[in-house]
């Protein structure tokens, strides 16, 4: 018990009051003993008559043994003819030490006088200690999270929220179903066999009478293109990207039993190449024969494809 009294006495010993004529200043801390890392609040209280103008020093720079953290707002109030002003500075210390906070000097002037007078607080002694760890104690787990009991209102709120979400989902789903029902079924693309496309293109070319108008090169270019596109579609040969020679080699690999059609195709492409690349001007009869050869090739090639596939090609 005696020890406790001594401790309380020690705490208040640090509180020192300085009395000047019309100004009183005092500084104190909340405690005389702190642990490492604790916030140390240093209070500076001034009580002075209204005619006095005190100058508050930069306390954070004066206390070099402590780490300055921040200032708290200044509390100022009037008490009759006097003013009571309280400054609070927060410091900390990150190592154990015995600290001495030096006296804080307050300068002031009185009335209209330019003379500067001074008064000061007393020195404060503090002790910063390490946290004692008992190595013999069992290592404990971190604390469990706090259990918060749900109030019935929160449960009701959750249930209502889930119901609202379910209703919104049902509404959106039924809207989507209605929309889907209104969309017309996609039309299947009409499949036109390559054979028909080729025959139609040949008829069209024949009708345009290109070579009769002197457009012989254009005629031969188009007629070979029609046949090449047909071969590409029905025989899966990249006929548009290969030369006539390469095309004949590829064709001879798929048309094995009919040498006649291959010979005819070879003549057809050779003639066309002569016109396309060698400025060859064939007789009108040759131009007519080219068309006949083209029709013949498409028809025979179709039969070969049917035989190879074992099914008839539509059209």
């Amino acid at each position, binding site marked *: 018990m005696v020890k406790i009294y001594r401790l309380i006495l020690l705490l208040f010993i640090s509180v020192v009051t300085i009395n000047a004529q019309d100004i009183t200043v005092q500084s104190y801390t909340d405690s005389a003993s702190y642990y490492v890392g604790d916030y140390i609040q240093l209070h500076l209280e001034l009580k002075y008559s209204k005619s006095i103008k005190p100058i508050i020093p930069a306390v954070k720079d004066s206390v070099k043994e402590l780490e300055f953290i921040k200032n708290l707002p200044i509390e100022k109030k009037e008490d009759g003819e006097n003013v009571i002003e309280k400054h609070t500075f927060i410091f900390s210390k990150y190592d154990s030490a015995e600290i001495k906070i030096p006296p804080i000097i307050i300068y002031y002037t009185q009335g209209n006088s330019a003379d500067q007078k001074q008064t000061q607080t007393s020195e404060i002694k503090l002790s910063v200690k390490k946290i004692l760890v008992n190595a013999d104690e069992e290592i404990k787990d971190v604390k469990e999270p706090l259990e918060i009991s749900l109030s019935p209102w929160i449960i009701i709120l959750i249930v209502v929220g889930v119901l609202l979400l379910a209703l919104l989902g049902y509404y959106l789903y039924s809207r989507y179903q209605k929309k889907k029902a209104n969309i017309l079924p996609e039309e299947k693309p009409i499949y036109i066999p390559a054979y028909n496309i080729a025959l139609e293109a040949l008829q069209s070319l024949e009708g345009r009478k290109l070579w009769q108008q002197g457009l012989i090169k254009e005629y031969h*270019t188009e007629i070979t293109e029609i046949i090449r596109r047909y071969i590409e579609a029905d025989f899966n040969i*990249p006929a*548009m*990207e*290969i*030369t*006539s*020679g*390469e095309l004949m080699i590829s064709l001879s690999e798929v048309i094995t039993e009919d040498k006649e059609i291959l010979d005819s195709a070879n003549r057809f492409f050779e003639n066309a*190449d*002569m016109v*396309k*690349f*060698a*400025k*060859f001007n064939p007789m009108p009869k040759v131009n007519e024969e080219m068309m006949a050869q083209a029709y013949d090739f498409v028809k025979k090639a179709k039969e070969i494809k049917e035989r190879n596939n074992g099914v008839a090609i539509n059209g």
Partner: protein
Amino acid sequence: MDITVLNERIRKESEFIDVLFHEISKAIVGQKNMVEKLVVGLLSNGHVLLEGVPGLAKTLAIKSLSSVMKANFQRIQFTPDLLPADLLGTLIYNQKDGNFTIKKGPIFSNFILADEINRAPAKVQSALLEAMQERQVTISDTTFQLDEPFLVLATQNPIEQEGTYPLPEAQVDRFMLKIKITYPSKEEELKIMRMYTNDISENINAVVTKEDIIRARKVVKDIYIDEKVEKYILDIVFATRNPADYGLNELTDLISYGASPRATLNLANGAKSMAFIKRRGYVVPEDVRSICADVMRHRIAVTYEAEAQEINSDAIIQKILNKVEVP
């Protein structure tokens, strides 16, 4: 120009082609593509670089080609200590009369075999490639025009890199064709084995004159190339530069730079020579395709990405040929 007349001229001027192929076949078994491309180089007045692993008859093919010709031939073995003067010639001091006289180097020949060109340092390569381009050599203050035909046939080995000086892209571009030689087939190798183990190889006769080549070159120049084929050539070359324009987006990141206008010229000239070999007075797309890889493979630079994916310029050219529409 009348194609019939041109065809007749070609028939007359190309008579030596069959004889040439026949004579070369006395020493070279198979490798038809390589021999054909060597003749393309000869007819197009373009130098040829042969690349292949050792033992594929690169040197023998060039020696055989030169043996068929009644023309001067020099073989220069490129080594790391070769000097430009060893190639071009130099000034020799004559002690008797106290004057300097010019001693011409082996480059003053019609056919030069630059064997293992990548074994000589850059200054020698550069001296040769300058002569190839300018077709003239300057020794001291005197400039000498090289004789026509002047053809450099160089070889290089792609697998040995130690102690070699790889030709820079700008210098490789001087070669009209870069021919890659592959292994012969089983049947061809059997023939080679029998021919050389039983010593049944025949002597090659010099049957082609310089004048034959010069006349043939004039005919080659006259061969007709239609605008459709010209457009096809342009499409192929431009596809190497802007592959996306030809639906080849996948090649955009694989090509660091595309073929130069020199590739366009060489494609057109090479295609004409191919038409000549096939006895045609006009070029067909097939002629372009048959020389396309040899003209372009050393003119397309692939990116690091392509190298990482083991995609070379040959694969890129093949993709382009498969995509660009044939006229």
